[in-house]
C-alpha cells in the first residue's frame, strides 16, 4: 500500500488499528465505588468554606439583603438575562447581559448567578449556561462572584452531579475562588478567575 496518498486521518487510524490488531471487545468496568450518599448541607458548607468560599445560608426572601451586605452601595454587578429580579438589592446597579462586551463585564464589581448543581463532597458549584447563569464569560471576568444555590440542586457526590448535567451545555465546575498551587505547591487564592466567591445557599 506504500505510495497511496491519503489524509492524516487515515494514516492515524490505520496505525492505531494495526496497533490494536483486531482486539476491540469492550472491557468490563467494575464500578464498585460509591454512587449514593447523604445530602449533608452542613458538610457542603464546611467543604465550600474549606476552599475559601464564603457561605451564607438564608431564606430566599433574604437574598437581596445578603447581597446588599456583600457589595458596597452603588456597586455595579452584571447579571444573566433571567436571574430572579427579587434577588437584587436596590443598593446596587445591575447590568443585565444582553450581549455586553468584555470590557463592560470586566469593569463590573461583581456578578450574580444561579447554579445548576452543587456537590457536597467536593464543595463544588456547577454552572451550565442556563438563562439564570448566563454566558461563561459573565462569571469569569468580574473579581467577585455571588452564586445562589437552592438546596434542591445539591447532590452528594461527583457521580450524582454528572447524572444531572447535560453534556452538550458549556459547563463550569467551580470549587472555591481562583487559586494556584504553582508556588511551592501551596494553594494560594486569587489568580485569573474571581478572587472572591460567595455562595448563598437557599433552603
Amino acid at each position, binding site marked *: 500500500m506504500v505510495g497511496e496518498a491519503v*489524509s492524516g486521518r487515515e494514516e*492515524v487510524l490505520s496505525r492505531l488499528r494495526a496497533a490494536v490488531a483486531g482486539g*476491540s471487545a469492550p472491557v468490563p468496568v467494575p464500578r464498585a*465505588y460509591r454512587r449514593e450518599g447523604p445530602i449533608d448541607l452542613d458538610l457542603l458548607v464546611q467543604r465550600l468554606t474549606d476552599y475559601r468560599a464564603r457561605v451564607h445560608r438564608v431564606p430566599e426572601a433574604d437574598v437581596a439583603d445578603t447581597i446588599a451586605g456583600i457589595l458596597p452601595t452603588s456597586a455595579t454587578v452584571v447579571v444573566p438575562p433571567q436571574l430572579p429580579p427579587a434577588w437584587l438589592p436596590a443598593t446596587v446597579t445591575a447590568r443585565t447581559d444582553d450581549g455586553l462586551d468584555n470590557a463592560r463585564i470586566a469593569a463590573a464589581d461583581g456578578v450574580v448567578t444561579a447554579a445548576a448543581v452543587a456537590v457536597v463532597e467536593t464543595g463544588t458549584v456547577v454552572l451550565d449556561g442556563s438563562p439564570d447563569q448566563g454566558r461563561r464569560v459573565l462569571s*469569569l471576568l468580574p473579581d467577585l462572584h455571588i452564586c445562589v444555590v437552592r438546596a434542591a440542586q445539591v447532590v452528594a457526590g461527583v457521580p450524582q452531579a454528572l447524572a444531572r448535567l447535560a453534556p*452538550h*451545555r*458549556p*459547563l463550569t465546575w467551580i470549587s472555591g475562588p481562583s487559586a494556584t498551587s504553582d508556588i511551592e505547591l501551596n494553594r494560594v487564592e486569587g489568580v485569573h478567575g474571581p478572587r472572591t466567591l460567595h455562595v448563598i445557599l437557599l433552603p
Partner: protein
Amino acid sequence: MTRTFLGMPATAPQGVGQLRGEQSFPAAARQALADAQLRRNLGHATATIRAKSGAVIAEAPDWEELRAAGAAIKTDVLARLPELLEQLEARVTAAGGVVHWAADANEANRIVTDLVRATGSDRVIKVKSMATQEIGLNEALDAAGIIAVETDLAELIVQLGDDRPSHILVPAIHRNRAEIREIFLRAMPDVDPALTDEPAALAAAARRFLRQTFLTTPVAVSGANFAVAETGTLAVVESEGNGRMCLTLPETLITVMGVEKVVPTWRDLEVFLQLLPRASTGERMNPYTSMWTGVTPGDGPQAFHLVLLDNGRSAVLADEVGRQALHCIRCSACLNVCPVYERVGGHAYGSVYPGPIGAVLSPQLTGVADNASLPYASSLCGACYDACPVKINIPELLVHLRDQAPHPRAESAAMAAAAYTMDHPALYAAAQRATRLSRWAGRRGRGLPPPLSGWTAGRDLPEPPAETFREWWAKR
C-alpha cells in the same frame, strides 16, 4: 493535506519536540544532585504535596474502587481506540467543531500553525498542555512569526525565566518564591518594583500582567484532560482561571490532544474527576473544570478545532505490555512520591515527561534506543505504582523496557557469564570461592574497577565471609 500512506505504528520523529534529552540520565542527574537549592525546593514541594494528597485520598473510602474503575476504563479505551476516536470525531463535528488528525509532531505543528495563520493573528494564548510541549509547538509557532503566550502561572515562570519545565503539574516546582520574584522583576514588563515574594503578591502580578493579553488575543491553544466519545465533550481541569479565559474569550479555540485521552462515556468522567484532583494537587476538587461540546452559539469561541495527535502513541499501543503507559492522566503523583525524582528533579529526564512515567513513556514514544538510559533511572522501589490513580505498573514497564534497551557489550558478556555460572552449581561454588580469594588477594583497601567503582565511591563493601552458607551447611 496528503502524505504517503504507511499505516504501521510508528515512534515520534527526531528533530522536533521535546522527548529526547541531550545527555544521559546519570550525567544529567549528577549535575542536578549538586544543586543544593534545587534539592531543597524539590524536597519541600514534594513533601507538601504528598501530605495534602494523602489526606484527601484518606477521605475517600472508595479510593481503591475508583482506581480499579479508572484502570479498567483506560484498558477498555485502548482496546478499541480507533472506533472511539471515530465516534468522538462524529460528535465533535456534529456539534460544530472541526477535527484534525496528526500522525506526528511535525503534522500537528503544521496544522496548528495553518489554523492560527488563517485567523490573521500573530499571537495565541495557551493554557498548559503537555501535548503541545511534547511536539514543540511554541517553537514551531515562533518560527512562523507567531508568539505563544503561556498563561499558566508556572509556565509563565518558566517562559519568563527562559527555563525548562521540570514537573508535569507544576513546571516551575524547581523554583522557590524568592527565585520567582527575581524572575518577575527581571522579565515581566511593567512589574511593580516593590513586588514581594508573598505567593499572593506573585499571583496578583501574573493576574495584572496577563489580563490585557487575555482580553485582546483572538486565538487560544489548549490541551485536554478528557474527551468523551459518546457526547463529543472536552474537559480541561485547572486551578487559576487562565484555562477558563483561554477556553471562553477568544474567537478561535484549537485543542491539541493525544489520542489516548478519549473516554467512552459521559459517566466515565465521574471516575476521573474524582481520581485526578486528589492524586495531583491533593484537592477534593480543583478550582475550575471546564467542559464544552463543539461550539455553543453566543457563548465562547465560535470556531473550535480539535487536533488528535499520534506522535508515537500507536507504537506504544502496539506493545501489549507497554500499552498501559497510555492510561496516564498526567496527575504527577508518581513524580511526587519518587525518591529519584525528588532528588534530581525533572530536567535530568531530558523530556517533557519526567519522573517515573517519563522514564517509561519517553522511551516508548521515541523508541528505547533514543532514550536508553531512562528505563534505568529507577531503583524499582514501587512507590509510583502504589500512587498511580490508574494503576500503571511502572516498575513492570521499566523492567520490560530494560529488556529492549541496547546493552553495553561488557555488561552483556558479564550477564551471560553470570547466568551460565549460576545454572551450574559446581561453577557457582567455584565462583563463590573466587570471591573469597579477594580476601587474600590484596584487593583490600582498593576500589573496585569501573563500572563497579560507582559502588565504592560512596560505600564500603563488606569482606567476603570466611565460609559461604552452603559450605557451613555441608559441614553440619
